[in-house]
């Protein structure tokens, strides 16, 4: 059992890398997406909406197949690792855009009005007044999303990424049945998600202490 567990550890860097890259890509792409979602004009709003619905409505495994076999066989060739990070990143952008949007909705209307009345440009209002407050309220749901993303990236093994899940499958096949690899994987994923939850709570507490009494 311990051997199995230790063997799975070799997959951890890859699992974390896919999760981290996808999250970073999603966090960045989520910004233009939420801005389009909140735009004054209907066209960017509609496009963002369509993207978000499609990204969230199709199972991740289908996305990865489309990106890896579809995109990958055509113009560009992607390694399984690249395809998984890109695919999960594009999906994450949709979820994170919605989290940001929820954050915008919590802001009192007076915040933007005050910044407008001061003569700040749209970009400055976003950068200095709105975004920091949106980010602050978005941290807890972002952390929750990160933990679920870590679990969801197990689908990367279906296109051949050598992550924890791939090793689990190999171990299970080698052992010819038995569920030790799966129990090990369960324990491992729980252990991996604990630091994320702790870190999120700490960041949240620190920001909260600063902005309220």
């Amino acid at each position, binding site marked *: 059992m311990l051997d199995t567990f230790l063997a799975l550890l070799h997959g951890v860097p890859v699992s974390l890398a896919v999760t981290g890259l996808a999250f970073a890509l999603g966090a960045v792409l989520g910004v233009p997406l939420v801005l389009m979602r909140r735009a004054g004009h209907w066209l960017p709003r509609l496009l963002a909406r369509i993207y978000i619905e499609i990204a969230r409505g199709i199972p991740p495994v289908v996305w990865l197949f489309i990106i890896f076999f579809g995109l990958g066989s055509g113009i560009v060739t992607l390694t399984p690792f690249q395809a998984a990070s890109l695919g999960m990143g594009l999906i994450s952008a949709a979820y994170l855009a919605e989290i940001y949007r929820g954050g915008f909705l919590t802001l*009192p209307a*007076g*915040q933007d*009005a*005050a*910044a*407008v*009345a*001061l*003569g*700040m*440009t749209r970009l*400055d209002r976003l950068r*200095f*007044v709105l975004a*920091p*407050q949106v980010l*602050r309220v978005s941290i807890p749901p972002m952390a929750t999303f990160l933990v679920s993303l870590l679990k969801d990236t197990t689908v990367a093994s279906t296109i051949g990424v050598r992550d924890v899940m791939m090793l689990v499958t190999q171990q299970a096949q080698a052992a010819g049945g038995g569920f030790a690899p799966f129990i090990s994987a369960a324990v491992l994923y729980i252990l991996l998600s604990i630091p994320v939850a702790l870190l999120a709570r700490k960041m949240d507490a620190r920001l909260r202490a*600063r*902005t*309220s*009494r």
Partner: protein
Amino acid sequence: MTDPIVSLKGINIRYGTHHAVRDVSLDIAKGEVVAMVGPSGAGKSTLLRAINMLETPASGTLHVGDFTFALDRPLGQKDLLALRRSTGMVFQQFNLFPHMTVQRNISLPQMRVLGRSREEADRVTARLLERVHLADKAQAYPARLSGGQQQRIAIARALALDPQVMLFDEPTSALDPELGLEVLSVMRELAADGMTMIVVTHEIAFAAEVADRVIVMADGQIIEEGPPEQVIRNPSLPRTQKFFRAILERH
């Protein structure tokens, strides 16, 4: 009146089918303090917010300081920013930025909007904090301050951009009476220094004492205006009499 610093002509503002401000014209002289009163829903906030284009009138002309805008065609971003730079606004809910210290609340707009250096902005901020009697609060976050202190910071933040006119929308309505007094006292000093001020308020005593002119609005129109002693003590319209009587009874 020679050379008004604020001049509204034929301003109309609609929300869908609701006609919130109806063909209002108003001239305000440099250094004048105007109190705007009237029942809830009269259109006071809407008219005030038209002066810095927080609300977009459907028609009319707006003149503030060096700017004159015809409102029946869309304004450019540049003009809008310039207009807002020359007006300062104070809100009922203060609207300080909660994630910034008091000093940054006041310095950041100076740096971003006027392009002042951090040192210069902080110097102006320190001077203004003295002026609103809160010099010791520079490093505090807004949530740690009382409502009256927050509102005085909000006044300092607006003043820091050297506006030509200050707009106040019920600046003391969210405050306990004694905290309201410290805000009113800062506003009184500001008026004495010659600032042009337009103040939407239910503080009749303040209007009577500080205002040069009282404007009564109802149903989106100015129904009566004149010096406070005349409008408050001796209003001509029955509707205005009833309004002031109701306010006096509440106090």
